[in-house]
């Protein structure tokens, strides 16, 4: 009798936790279905290729034009710029914390860098708009300080904690025996670092970089505030651009539900979703490859 009750109890618990494990999958499926349902109707009115490669975004004019190439390129430029800033900053500080900093300095620095991740993005945006943009405008003598570069700079700083924290974790997971073996065969610290430790933690570091990139490409409030928002194909880093997320955020509030413009914003969201999905798949592939190479495969 008692055993039976216990079995039932166990079954219930198992059911609850199975449900919890699948709950996030449920949300993912729900969001994906919504994106497709609300986004696809636009392609009845605009050809897919014209949507992706169209050069002009005039959704509210008569006749409207729905070309998101400037928006896609805006997102990519800002993201590439952010990666160029957050990778050296993030990986560099991870190496310092792991290799050079003493225990006390590490206990102080790592939480401090992680604190950067806790600052709300609108605060970054305000900081960029009020302080960084006017400063850059004067320093570089630009017509306007709200540019792709300004966005990259702020996003790069925002993504640094992600890259740093995950890279540092990866570095500290390298088994001590690896270093000891390296020292034992006569390698110095630099050789050990570049030929043993970094390759061994490369999968973790690249996961960190990819997550940093996903953060940068999906960030909305900050880019809406500091990138200027010109829907043109960017030619330099020092001109205003309009990333996809900023377009959705600025226009979704005032479109009529069910209109072509409304569906086109969902379609932008869909494209964005596919791009970040691509990032995540690449990250997973890279991480697997390194694991296999080092014999750490599952």
């Amino acid at each position, binding site marked *: 009798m008692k055993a039976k009750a216990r079995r039932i109890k166990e079954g219930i618990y198992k059911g609850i936790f199975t449900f919890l494990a699948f709950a996030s999958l449920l949300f993912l499926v729900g969001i994906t279905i919504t994106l497709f349902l609300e986004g696809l109707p636009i392609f009845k009115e605009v050809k897919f290729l014209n949507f992706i490669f169209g050069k*002009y*975004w*005039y*959704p*509210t*004019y*008569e006749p409207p034009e729905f070309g998101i190439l*400037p928006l896609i390129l805006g997102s990519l430029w800002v993201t590439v710029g952010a990666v160029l800033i957050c990778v050296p900053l993030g990986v560099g500080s991870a190496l310092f914390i792991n290799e050079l900093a003493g225990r006390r300095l590490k206990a102080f620095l790592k939480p401090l860098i992680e604190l950067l991740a806790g600052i709300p993005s609108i605060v970054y945006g305000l900081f960029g*708009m*009020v302080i960084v*943009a*006017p400063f850059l*405008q004067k320093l570089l003598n630009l*017509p*306007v*300080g*709200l540019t792709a570069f300004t966005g990259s700079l702020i996003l790069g700083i925002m993504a640094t904690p992600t890259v740093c924290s995950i890279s540092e974790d990866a570095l500290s997971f390298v088994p001590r025996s690896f270093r000891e073996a390296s020292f034992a065969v006569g390698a110095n610290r630099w050789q050990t670092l570049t030929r043993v430790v970094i390759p061994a933690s490369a999968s973790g570091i690249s996961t960190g970089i990819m997550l940093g990139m996903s953060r940068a490409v999906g960030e909305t409030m900050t880019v*809406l*505030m500091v990138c*200027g*928002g*010109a*829907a*043109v194909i960017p030619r330099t880093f020092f*001109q*205003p651009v*309009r990333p996809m997320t*900023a377009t959705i*955020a*600025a*226009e979704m*509030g*005032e*479109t*009529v*539900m069910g*209109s072509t*413009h409304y569906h086109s914003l969902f379609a932008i969201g869909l494209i964005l979703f596919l791009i970040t999905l691509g990032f995540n798949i690449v990250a997973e592939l890279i991480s697997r490859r390194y694991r296999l190479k080092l014999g750490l495969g599952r």
Partner: protein
Amino acid sequence: MLLALTAALSFGLVIGSKALAAKKTITIKGSTTVLPIAQACAEAFMNRYPEIDISVQGGGSGVGIASIIDGTCDIGDSSRPIKDKEITKAQEKGVEVYENVVAMDGIAVVVHPSNPVNELTREQIKAIYTGKISAWSEVGGGKEKIVVVSRDSASGTFEAFNHLALDKERVRPDSLLNASNNAVAMTVASTPGAVGYIGLGYLSPRVKSLKVNSVEPTKENVVNGSYVLARKLFMYTKGEPEGLNKQFIDFILSSDGQKLVDKAGFVALK
């Protein structure tokens, strides 16, 4: 015993009628430009008539008019007149959309305080925004390039400016996009070569407003019709307003209501 029963009954009746009265609601949706007017008036109105409950939501002019047509709100705010397309849609659904003008708004063209330019004609504004003029020297200013600052194309202010100043021509694609009046003011205040447009209520010493066709953008000039970049603000109702809707719109049009309009930074009708 009987007395107690009557007392209890009448007490119940009072509570019941109170509960019934509390159910009187007005739902207002639409333009974010009209939102501050609707909100200020709704608050004052609810203070005066506590039994009436008003819910005010934004969403944009298009949403306001669409909600009137769909019957999902009582009053639809709009910062532009109803479009022909929307009238057709309303007729298809058998809805008569009634227009109430509740206030006026002027759009000021603003530049950085250091800019020597003091006035532009409407034609020059159009040429700047459509990309035919791109240096301040062409309109009597310095050597800087003109940085054109605009609003997101779904906003009521953009639609009004596009209609009033640009004859619905396309804004140059490399114009900067800002999502609010305040953001435009902030961008212009920190960019020496910038030109932007904002509602009169958002003017501040941080930016310099320009005369348009030699007329200052002031409230008087908006009301007397001499300032060209001015527009009416609407509250649409299903048919002529009656009952609660009429009570509320009459309140906005009263001198108390128009004082609130003025306080919210818009131009009172009288």
